[in-house]
């Protein structure tokens, strides 16, 4: 079974440009999460989809970030316009829905390393 995949693996863009990151969750996983790790800091939650609906977007830093999950399958995270502080590694994770109380294991993708110059 394929794991969580992310594309691209690396992206280098200039300040002010737009970048779109893609995440393909494990097939059948209704939950999809985006996290970000800025260099040297902790991995921080951005948002959580259940199917195509945004369940929790409390971690989105500002309105330059737009996440979508049309059809409840893959998800995209667009940053427009990108700023220097957006640099970091963006992780996607997915999990099944079945266990209550936050117990569904989140499976992580390899991450996309974004560098904004």
């Amino acid at each position, binding site marked *: 079974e394929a*794991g*969580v995949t992310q594309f691209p693996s690396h992206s280098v863009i200039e300040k002010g440009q737009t970048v779109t990151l893609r995440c393909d969750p494990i097939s059948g996983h209704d*939950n999809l*999460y985006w*996290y970000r790790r800025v260099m*040297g*800091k*902790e*991995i*921080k*939650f951005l948002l*959580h989809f259940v199917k195509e609906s945004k*369940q*929790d977007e*409390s*971690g989105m830093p500002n309105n330059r970030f737009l996440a979508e999950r049309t059809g409840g399958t893959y998800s995209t995270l667009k940053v427009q316009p990108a700023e220097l502080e957006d640099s970091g590694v963006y*992780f996607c*994770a997915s*999990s099944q829905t079945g266990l209550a*109380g*936050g*117990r*569904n*294991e*989140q499976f*992580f*993708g*390899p*991450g996309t390393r974004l560098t904004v110059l």
Partner: protein
Amino acid sequence: AQSVSQHNHHVILSEAASLELGCNYSYGGTVNLFWYVQYPGQHLQLLLKYFSGDPLVKGIKGFEAEFIKSKFSFNLRKPSVQWSDTAEYFCAVNAQTGFQKLVFGTGTRLLVSP
């Protein structure tokens, strides 16, 4: 708000040495506790988890962790490390009620020298 503290940012050990990585969390409710590991060039993967019951949990590759509720701690241990344990280790929590997002610590880089 939830927070997780990992006090050791870098740890260097020789093979066969014992390992203990500290993790403390802050949260007002009941939590689930996790340790994730990221080996060089690989994905984050779950090492072990605690939901309830026996506070001593065993994970993959000989790792274990102990939940001490009174100390809000979930320290990771391994009696004898191997070179292949070189990786970055992350402690994480999430709430048992409400949203399922994980809150991570800053990570601990472990280097095991042969």
